[in-house]
């Protein structure tokens, strides 16, 4: 390890108290400007929303156990899958890694005392809460049945509570913009002395690339949702074919944001996995620059591919070909990452701890998710697979098998740093295994269902699909059980004494060189850096 930070032990000053003990009382949380406390508050709400979205998912899967009615009627079912989508996308996955783990870890990895704009950081947390309140309001006021994509013209005519849900997504977008803005300014202005851009940990690189996408894409979502509101309130008619408007224009607007948004969701996961694999292979990461730059490459190409959602919406053949080609290009930087991760593991002394199990799970799930994306990027096969369970499975492999596995891996990795407590390694790894098995039962099945022609979002289905649907539903219960076990594993530690060492995993980045949990200003003395982040 060639980085150093002068340890408190070197001086004769007493060690500073952890940031939990630096202030007490509810006000010390509500008005806090400390990035760690804000990160923890985000974490609590993201996990609560994950539970809520998960319950919706289990209800959807339970309904699909049998054709026709199983537990709820068709209208309720439409609301359930919409709520599952909206909650998971806007309240869970988008803020999951950046706003919770990112807030907690980014300044630590940079060797900074805080993010550049602490007040803006707190504001973005409260904006997130306000957005969540609008979403809850919509939920108890008839909910939404449009799907999380809010496609027009249906979203203009349905009498469910679309306005409050769209407002929720609009407000949550601002929270995401402010977090991104904050991270960009932090990365530029608060790196420790000696930390050049190419000495930043890859998690920082990933968050930086994500922030750039957030800054560039989210405003377009904001205007799209404003237009949708204007359609409903002012009856502007630009998305309404009955009034001379164009419904596909909405799809262009929506996917111009929402395709980059899937990179807002997955790129932070890449960052986490880079950290996990290098730490638990006890080896510097292979192809540091290639991984860092491929995040930026994905961020750029990601803006040019939105048309692959409209292969069947009547866009011109030439546009379809161009979008198809550009979509294939994304596979290059993505494959660069996967290959570099496996190359890092090659001949490493791999230590199989819980975070590493999640990282390995990620590698497999994300690779399957990425490769099936190629089927969908091929305009010809997409005509067959469009709007089937194949798309559902692909999306969940990337978003859940990718982002959520990375998120959980990161959560287990940094849990000792955040809470100061070690969890039960056996239970943690076992929970990961259960979730992994459940995940594959749920979603591998859906590739088959989709290829056989089962359309997504349908309440009813042909009898011939029942065995696979039932298998998938049972898989979702196993998956739920896995997450429940990891919740028990992590939350159980809160009842025991603080026992985590400063650096339980032999990590090399700066966050491992301060106390677990860190003091209020993160480091006892300003750390300085004179080598790459993973040099051992």
């Amino acid at each position, binding site marked *: 390890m060639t980085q150093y930070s002068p340890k408190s032990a070197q001086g004769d000053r007493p060690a500073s108290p952890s940031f939990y003990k630096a202030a007490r009382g509810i006000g010390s949380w509500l008005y806090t400007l400390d990035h760690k406390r804000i990160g923890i508050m985000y974490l609590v709400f993201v996990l609560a929303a994950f539970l809520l979205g998960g319950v919706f998912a289990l209800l959807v899967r339970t309904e699909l156990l049998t054709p026709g009615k199983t537990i709820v009627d068709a209208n309720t079912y439409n609301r359930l899958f919409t709520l599952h989508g909206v909650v998971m996308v806007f309240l869970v996955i988008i803020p999951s890694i950046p706003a919770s783990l990112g807030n907690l870890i980014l300044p630590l990895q940079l060797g900074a005392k805080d993010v550049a704009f602490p007040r803006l950081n707190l504001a973005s947390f409260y904006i997130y809460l306000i957005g969540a309140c609008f979403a809850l309001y919509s939920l108890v006021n008839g909910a939404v049945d449009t799907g999380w994509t809010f496609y027009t013209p249906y979203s203009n005519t349905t009498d469910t509570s679309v306005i409050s849900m769209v407002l929720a997504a609009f407000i949550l977008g601002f929270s995401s913009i402010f977090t991104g803005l904050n991270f960009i*300014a932090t990365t530029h*202005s608060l790196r420790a002395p000696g930390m050049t851009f190419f000495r930043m940990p890859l998690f920082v690189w990933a968050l930086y690339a994500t922030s750039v996408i957030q800054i560039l*894409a989210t405003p377009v979502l904001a205007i799209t949702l404003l237009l949708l509101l204007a359609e409903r309130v002012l*009856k502007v*008619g630009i998305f*309404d074919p009955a009034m001379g408007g164009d419904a596909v224009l909405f799809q262009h607007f929506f996917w111009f944001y929402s395709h980059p948004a899937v990179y807002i969701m997955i790129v932070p996961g890449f960052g986490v996995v880079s950290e996990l694999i290098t730490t638990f292979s006890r080896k510097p990461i292979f192809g540091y620059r290639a991984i860092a730059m491929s995040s930026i490459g994905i961020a750029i190409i990601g803006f040019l591919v939105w048309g692959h959602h409209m292969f069947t919406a009547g866009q011109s053949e030439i546009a379809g070909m161009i979008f198809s080609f550009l979509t294939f290009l994304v596979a290059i930087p993505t494959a660069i990452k996967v290959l570099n991760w496996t190359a890092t593991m090659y001949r490493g002394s791999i230590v199989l701890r819980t975070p590493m199990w999640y990282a390995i799970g990620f590698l497999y799930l994300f690779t399957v998710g990425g490769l099936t994306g190629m089927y969908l990027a091929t305009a010809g096969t997409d005509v067959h697979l469009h709007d089937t369970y194949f798309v559902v499975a692909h999306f969940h492999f990337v978003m859940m098998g990718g982002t959520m596995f990375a998120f959980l891996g990161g959560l287990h990795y940094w849990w000792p740093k955040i809470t100061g407590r070690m969890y039960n390694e056996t239970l943690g790894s076992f929970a990961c295994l259960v979730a992994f098995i459940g995940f594959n039962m749920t979603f591998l099945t859906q590739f088959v269902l989709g290829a056989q022609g089962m359309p997504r979002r349908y309440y009813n289905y042909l009898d011939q699909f029942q065995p696979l649907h039932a298998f998938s539903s049972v898989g979702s219960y196993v998956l739920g059980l896995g997450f429940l076990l990891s919740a028990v594993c992590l939350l159980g530690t809160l009842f025991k004494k603080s026992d985590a060492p400063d650096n339980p995993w032999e990590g090399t980045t700066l966050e491992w060189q301060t106390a677990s949990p860190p003091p209020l*200003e993160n480091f006892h003395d300003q750390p300085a850096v004179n080598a790459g982040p993973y040099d051992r």
Partner: protein
Amino acid sequence: MAIMGREYHHAHHFPSARAEADAAKLGMWTFLATEVLMFSGLFMAYTAYRSTHAEMFKAAHQLLDWRLGGLNTLVLILSSLTMALGVRSAQQNKREQSAFYLVVTLLCAGAFLVVKYFEYTHKIHLGLLPGGYYTYNGPEFAGIDSPHIFFGIYFLLTGLHGFHVLFGMIAITWILLRTTRGDFSSKYYTPVELVGLYWHLVDLIWIYLFPLLYLVG
């Protein structure tokens, strides 16, 4: 830019006041980028419909008064100038001059909104309204398809811009109060500079809106 001194107490997590000011400016520029992208969505809607409904756009824009639009353009350009002068005076420690320029900027912004108010009431009176509320039935649109789309886009673009003007006025009032309170000096004037940047963007957007809406033909 070598004006930053040690006397101003910058936030503890920045190594220096200079670093803090630079970070603030970077943050503001990033925010301005999001603003541009937000408007660019509406400009895309404009472009899409203008290319499919060229004749309609041509006919519809004649119902906008280019003289009022031109007047507002001049008012905003003037306000950009006074804003720039206000920032410069703050940099040079001329507090009263800075306050004066900020007041003029505010007056210009107010004048812009007053003119906009008259334009809007006129259109509401004629029924030149977005989509479902459109009732105008003049000879200009004989044989022309869906003019309500133009007015939908017109109201969205100018409305969103007007909202930004309003927000700018609040921000300018805030730095005006702080200026008179004596918060700023040649050592510390970041907020004035940031509001200035924001205000220039608001003006710049109008400079695109004006020809696109009023002078299409």
